[in-house]
């Protein structure tokens, strides 16, 4: 399971690979906390993510809070079926843009 990120302009893209679970906690946090301060848009790229558990949902909430809470601009993209299912059950599309 690995996390890496790239930024272009004001957007930070965080790529998740493998199982997104508690072991990713520190890396995920570092990815957005240590980014430049002018970031106002976040994209979580799930193309290589296999699976997400409830602690990953928690991490997404933490990111959203960091990004401004209700005014945050966080997108979760390229989700596979399993990932999408978990996000749907939790109704996270009410808080994030998901595709």
């Amino acid at each position, binding site marked *: 399971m690995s996390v890496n990120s790239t930024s272009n302009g004001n957007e930070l893209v965080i790529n998740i690979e493998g199982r997104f679970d508690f072991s990713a906690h520190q890396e995920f946090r570092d990815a957005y906390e240590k980014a430049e301060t002018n970031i106002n848009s976040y994209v979580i790229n799930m193309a290589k993510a296999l699976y997400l558990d409830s602690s990953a949902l928690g991490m997404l909430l933490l990111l959203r809070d960091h990004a401004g809470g209700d005014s945050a601009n966080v997108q979760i993209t390229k989700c596979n079926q399993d990932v999408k299912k978990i996000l749907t059950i*939790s*109704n996270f599309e009410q808080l994030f843009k998901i595709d």
Partner: protein
Amino acid sequence: MEGSSYTILIADDNMSDRMILTAIVKKMGHTVLSAADGLEAVQQYTEKKPDIILLDVMMPNMNGLQAAIEIKKIAGEDMVPIIFLTSLQDANDLAKCLESGGDDFLSKPYNPIILTAKINAFSRMLTMHNILQQQKNLISKNADHLLNEQQVAKAVYDNVAHSGCLDLPNLKFLLSPFSVFNGDVLLAARRPSGSVHILLGDFTGHGLPAAIGAMPLAEIFYGMTAKGFLMEDILREINSKLKTILPIGYFCCACMATLSFRKKNIEVWMGGLPDYYVLRKDQDEVEHIVSTHLPLGVLSSQAFDATTQNIAFDVGDKFYMWSDGIVESRNDDGDLFGEERLKQIFYNNKNRESLFDEIVSKVNDFTGESGKDDDTTILEVGMLEESELGKVNIDLSGGSVSGPTDWKMEYTLRGETLKSFNPLPVMLNILNDVPSLRRLSGQLYTLMSELFSNAFEHGVLGLSSDLKSSTDGFAKYYQLRSERMDNIGKHTVCFIFDHIPTKSGGQLTIKVIDTGKGFDYKSIKSSNFKADTYCGRGIPLIRSISESLKYSGNGNTVEVVLAWQAEEA
């Protein structure tokens, strides 16, 4: 470390050999103990516990090999390196030495450089071993502490998390005794009206963090259910509480259901849990109940949505609730149980009565010894005829509601306070103490807001809302308002609340009296009550909320009556 001084035992039956070794070892700065045979060597070890042992193989009374075995036995978990002193050259013989507990060899003639190097190497190992031992002991102590704390947490949790009326005849459930460690909560309680509230919760996190959320959740659930609060209010309260106390990223996936025996339906709110199934008495196809909300503890109170789904539910139908532990459980190969397997159990089932047990045993078979029951929380809900359930045991006087139902209160604002203080929140708070008025909270606020505005602006200040119909008028209105507020003098506005219980629920009378000049209400026929007359635009609104509205006095007194029904079971 190479700097520290160790105690080294030299066991050799040859005195000149011993002398040479002693000289070398002493030169290194270490302390020397001597033994002339195996027996003495064991004795020396037992009494003085040297750090390293130089042991001759061929000795009278007890040879080196035997002595090594004895010493290692006595040492137990302690590390004591043994260097055999030998001129043996046969590989088998040397192997035998190592098997009996030896760690290394030194051959004759004794080379001081080599012996020094070996002793230093072993002393590094000793240091490392001692550090590891210390850490191991520390970890062990901490683990004991944690275990103890967890047991206390479990005891507290057990008192809270699965009490209530889970023993009703129409409920079958399985909740792991270790649910505190996986954050699962299963609660059931009867409402004063007879219906049943059920809540299945799955907190994120394991162990103590999960248990911490469960406590207030259970308290709110039981407390409010007993008082007759509706599911939406309870959910709102729980969400609010969890949002406050849980750190961001922690939440509770939950399903709450109200089972009504009288109406023969289930009302369901689902946030974050996998699909639940409804199985009809005479159908094989399962109906899916889907999660439509975010889990509890995520949204603020304003954003929280308590909308429920209503499902008809008859005797013979079954409703299945579970945590995600079933679908998420894994076998030894790491495969997920998955929803397909779960559905299969339903399809293959021949006898409804044993379906619950079949689900439980299939999950246990799948997870094997490793995951047995650990994460499985499951509830089967059936419907009963009202007559089959006993009466709800709630100690109340005056009907099936609780909270203050028979009271009167008067609240008057005078002069300067009237000018600057908004009494609405305080008054609304008192009204909210009547459980059933709580659901009318919004309407009550609107009502009182209008009544107060009328009494203050139009009554006391004598302003007419006609002024506000033009832009110039607005400015004039507020200018006048400001002037008149400065001259408020001894004016007052008085609110009188009178609440009485009725057969079907309760009734609230709100009377508002202001010290203004009033108006000629008698001359206005209710049918052509224009929106912009004395009392402003609020009257139709007030009328729509209340049972009755009447004026008295010189028009400076208004009385509004609101009634509410205790909702049915």
